[in-house]
């Protein structure tokens, strides 16, 4: 297995825990410090994403928004003076309110990773233009979320803004695709990598806005 084949095998890995288990990968990783560092970083990102679910404490604004939702759903009394400190567990989309900030954080982490990781010299020499970068590890595989989740959340929470979210999602996905294309064509272009990071940042913001119950 060479560097290119290892990169491609990473793109097909379902999650970070499966990285590095294959015997051919292991053999290559033992001899290639660049790829070994790459896999180590991906595993770190994957493990950090899991830890974020437990460690990421929502802001008071999120609690306030959850309380508004509870009031609207009639689960707490209208004039109750104290704030609920527990997230809604009964709501159909409760999981999404936790998962989306995690997804946003992971997308940002991917963007930072893509920016910071320099391609191995050997890879730059051997690889065809469209297979060079590790951003082929899909957003869905890393974050565990997809665009449909975002759109359903927007449809439920902000029906008046659903068209706006749909349109902006389409645009930001095109942004990411274009940025990926430029990075693939110019793998050593730091500006291109930064553009890709910014595109991911925009998508992360879209998720953040969609899950914020205080906003339409």
């Amino acid at each position: 297995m060479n560097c290119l084949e290892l990169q491609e095998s990473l793109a097909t890995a379902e999650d970070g825990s499966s990285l590095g288990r294959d015997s051919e990968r292991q053999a290559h990783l033992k001899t290639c410090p660049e790829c070994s560092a790459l896999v180590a970083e991906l595993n770190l990102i994957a493990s950090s994403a899991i830890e974020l679910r437990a460690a990421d404490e929502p802001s008071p604004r999120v609690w306030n928004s959850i309380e508004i939702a509870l009031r609207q759903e009639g689960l707490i009394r209208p004039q109750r003076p104290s704030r609920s400190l527990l997230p809604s567990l009964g709501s159909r989309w409760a999981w999404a309110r936790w998962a989306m900030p995690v997804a946003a954080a992971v997308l940002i982490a991917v963007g930072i990773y893509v920016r910071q990781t320099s391609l191995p010299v050997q890879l730059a020499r051997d690889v065809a233009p469209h297979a060079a970068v590790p951003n082929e590890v899909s957003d869905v595989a890393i974050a565990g979320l997809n665009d449909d989740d975002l759109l359903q959340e927007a449809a439920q929470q902000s029906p008046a803004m659903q068209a706006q979210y749909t349109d902006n999602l389409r645009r930001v996905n095109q942004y990411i695709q274009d940025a990926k294309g430029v990075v693939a064509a110019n793998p050593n272009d730091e500006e291109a990598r930064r553009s890709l990071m910014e595109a991911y940042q925009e998508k992360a913001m879209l998720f953040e806005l969609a899950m914020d119950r205080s906003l339409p």
Partner: protein
Amino acid sequence: MSGRTIELVVVGAMLAGSLAAETHKDYRFNVGPKAGVSVNNPFGSVSVKPAAGNVVVINAVLYSDKVEVDNNLVGNRVEVQSHLLPGGDAESGRVDYEILVPSDASVTLHSSTGSLHAEKLHGDVTLEGAAATVDIRDISNAHVHVKTLNGPVTITNVQDGHVEVDSLSGEVTLNSVTGPLVQVISTSGGINYIGDFGDRGEYRLTSHSGNIEATVPGSTSADVSARSVRGEVHDDIPLQPKTHTWFPTNNGSAFWGTMGQATMSSTVVLRSFSGKIHLRKRNSK
């Protein structure tokens, strides 16, 4: 009674009913230096201006009994939340705020459809909203952070600011905005910068498909690089071209050069994928 008189009576009655539905509430908090003020108002406007002294004064207009205002002073931080009650919606849940804060206060505002406005402050300002119109002016020595989905953003007269604007499709206009870092990222909204790029700052304006236009006076000193992958790049100002560039600067899709005094110059990066980029000289009147 004439038809016109009846009409006036009806309009008056409607107006009176409307006014009767509005409720004005005032709150006042004594705070220390560098206080924090946070306002979360799902539907309605928020306007923040400087107060005399270390006091936060909140004037809220509630448009129905379907919404209430929660407020709290925690340490040196004032938190305000518009609470939608059962049956409340975007119309009945509307609250408009006018808030006076110490000029050194840090302000965080969240809204959706209302306008967000902050002026004459030198504490950090963070404004966030989906379709909210954002207007920030006369800020100095502070961080200014803005996030919008499609709401337009206008920032005027910010000096020594650390300015970061993220907008998916809203138009962003910066007028006389300078500082160590001025960064705008947009997916499809246009970016319009009017000013002189200060000195020794980093200015980065990026849009995927929106147009970028920078209008600068002839006295501007800046290293300017502009590059559009699929759009056009126009430069009305003579630049001293860079002798060493790492990207091709021909075909009307990119340029890179220095205007004014290189020793005093800021770094200006204009990037787009399919939008047009235009660097133009401001006409003196």
